[in-house]
């Protein structure tokens, strides 16, 4: 039976971007309002999962040639590095610092090293979730 999923495919094209926007919003909002690296990573992963479910794996792989294992590894490396770097300046391990920067259009915003840490968390979450789901879905080739 041929599955007719035109509606799903069409809707997903738009929805994915909405989800991605939410993910980015959640990531940056996390400092003051609900959100943060972990949730942002999960939402990002769910956007990717939606793509994989709607289109077949091969197609998404061609358009999105990312090795999620590497993403996860980069995430962990980033999180650990943000911990180690302060020690090189005589600060305690995982010490976070922040500074205010004036951006054009958006105005005064705070830039903190905790952002990098959160980015590491987010990347790890995306990487691991996608690695697990993809390997389970692809694993039946014997």
């Amino acid at each position, binding site marked *: 039976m041929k599955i007719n999923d035109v509606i799903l495919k069409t809707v997903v094209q738009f929805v994915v971007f909405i989800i991605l926007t939410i993910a980015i919003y959640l990531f940056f909002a996390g400092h003051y309002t609900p959100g943060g690296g972990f949730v942002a990573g999960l939402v990002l992963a*769910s956007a990717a999962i939606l793509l994989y479910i709607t289109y077949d794996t091969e197609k998404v792989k061609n358009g999105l040639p990312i090795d999620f294992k590497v993403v996860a590894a980069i995430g962990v490396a980033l999180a650990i590095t943000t911990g180690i770097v302060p*020690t090189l300046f005589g600060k305690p391990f995982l010490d976070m610092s922040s500074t205010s920067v004036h951006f054009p259009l958006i105005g005064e915003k705070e830039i903190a090293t905790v952002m990098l840490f959160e980015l590491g968390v987010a990347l790890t979450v995306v990487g691991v979730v996608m690695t697990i789901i993809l390997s389970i879905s692809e694993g039946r080739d014997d």
Partner: protein
Amino acid sequence: MITKWAILLPFFMAILIPILHTRIRKFHLGWVALAVPFILFIALLRFLPQIASGDTISHSWRWIPSYNLTFTTYLDGLSMLFALLITGIGTLVILYSIFYLSKKEALHKFYCYLLLFMTAMLGVVFSDHLIMLYFFWELTSIASFLLIAFWHHRKASRRGAQKSMLITVTGGIIMLMGFLILAHEMDSYSIRTIISTISIENLNRPLYLAMLFVLLGAFTKSAQFPFHIWLPDAMEAPTPVSAYLHSATMVKAGIYIVARFTPIFAYNLSWFWIVSIVGLITLFWGSFNAIKQNDLKALLAFSTVSQLGLIMSLLGMGSVVYATTGEITDVIYTQATFAALFHLVNHSTFKGALFMMVGILDHEVGTRDLRRLGGLITIMPITFSIALIGGFSMAGLPLFNGFLSKEMFFEATLAIQEMNVHSWIVLFPVIAWVASVFTFVYCFILVFKTFFGSADKLPTDRKIHEAPIGMLMSPVILAVSIIFIFFFPNILGKFVIGSAMQSVYPTVQPFEQMTPTIAAWHGFNTALFMTIGVIVFGIILYLSWPKWNRIYNRLPEKWTLNYLYNQLLEEAEIVGKFVTDLYMTGSVRHYLMYIYVFFIFIVGGYFIQSHIFAIDLEDQAPVEWFEILLMFVMAGAAIFLLFAKSRLTAVVSNGVLGLGVAMLFVVFRAPDLALTQLVVESVTTVLFLLSFAYLPEWSKEQKSKATKSMNLLISLTAGALVMAISFTVLNYSEFKTISGFFENAYELAGGANIVNTILGDFRAFDTMLEVVVLLVAGLGVYTLIKFRARKGQKKYED
């Protein structure tokens, strides 16, 4: 600062090398790696005058202050001696490896591991903190494991790597226990602090245990009898690795530990007995076994074992003054330690040269089997010269540095007689002499069987010629230094070993008086006559070797240590499989049962034990009608799940349950949790659907009544316990409240979202480790699925 960068530089390079290797095609990757030890060697030399005058350099580096972890590095005479060996021999070995390993090998891995090892080894000799020392100690084992298994397609390499890993890491963990006891007893983790506070009054039982544990660690690493069996098997590694790790540096880490801890433990006379007797047995057993080897590298491995035993026994003899007198009154008894450190340097030079020589033979001739080698003197004159110099130095013949330290060794065994420790001590010079005769014999076998005699059995598949100049460079430098040290030993003695003596005997003032003037000739004394005896008997034994070599077959296979090791490994596997099969049934239900039963007994037990169960419904907020509705929906979904007829229904009702929890979070004003729960719920539902294909048919379970009621009991108890605990914690006040952090989150962490400040700041260390766990779990799933055995494949790799 130098110490910190000395540890970090090789580490950074080890990270950089795998990245660089795809970029560098024009020249050998080894040239990049070569820069590291060379720069460090020069940098360390610049500090030599300062260290030689008795100064020390230390550098503290706060790591995790809240756990009181300060990473203190420390450069004194002893560290300097080892650091110079590590970087100096390291430079030569990497130079040699450039010509030994072709560009087709996995060079990026090789140099990455080698530099990692260098970091670890420098870390061992520079660390002042016991735990840091242990950390680097284990890192050397890991690096050694990776390097032995460098040619991992060979089974023997893998076996050798596993053996060395199992033995050295077991020793390492025992040593950690020793460290912990020591730190607990002395109330400090800093070696320097412990040395300065310890005295003969501190002798007690725990410290005795700590001493035994630390020694076990040192003995396994330094391949002392009966743990030496890993070293011959480690010879499966590429020859540069054998020359570097398994003769010049890593196996000497145990020597370092013994030297470093002498001022701590040597007040106990047992230290003297254990170290010197184990050393002497190793010396004898290694030299005795070296003679029967046919593989040149195996011969060198046993000779390394034996020489390490020699150094170890000298350190033992040098420590006796601590125990007998309490403080050092007569400098003469410290001379054994001086001889130990001197021989340590000498051994690195001649054994490094010999290993490189064997590597050249392997590379150019294609075999290291003594039964096939012969007559190479005319074909490879330079290699022969290296073998001659190295071999004769090892045999302890004059004109080579080994003679000087061998003489000092004999003198030390004689001097110890005057200490009147025990009458059995008479045996020391006897064992030393007999072992030296055997040493002499295998040195002659090494030199003469390889380069003289007939060349008939040499492999004929290639044209044998002298090695290229690059390959000869390092061994020739070592050979020249062998002779140089013989003629000018006091340069080494005064500038390097003198201040190292101060680290072993910190109380002797001024420390310069412990530095003797080494002379090749000091009249006809007993030591000289012993050497002459060694030469005479050695030549006799060498010539009559075919007559007495049958004694090696006398020892039945079942009595060897290797047999014991293999049996132990096999038994451990059988027992391990038996025990694991008992509880790893493959049924998720069983695993959940274990978890809940443990939870009930441990958590419930704790709560009952401490009488803190208290259900108090006063001051609670009133329950609203929609909350009750929500509870009913969730309870309904959960009960429905139990009676679901198909898997899809089960997944859906599980989803309802999850969404109900999310709703509950909303009601209780926890938007973060609700958000996370929602996304987690959708992702897990997808995961469930994906797993459908793997799962067996959904069937009604056929279990006996007893099992079912047992399961019911466990689940009901677990549920009731959770409920009781939830009520209890509402009124629980044993722990300090953490609400202060929430209220001041903005000032403390600069964030208004409490949840995030907890994750990213207050408990960032937890988050970091959780992220690591997540990665490991993900990779675990990936490897389980991707690399599982396909149908018809073998279940496990051999």
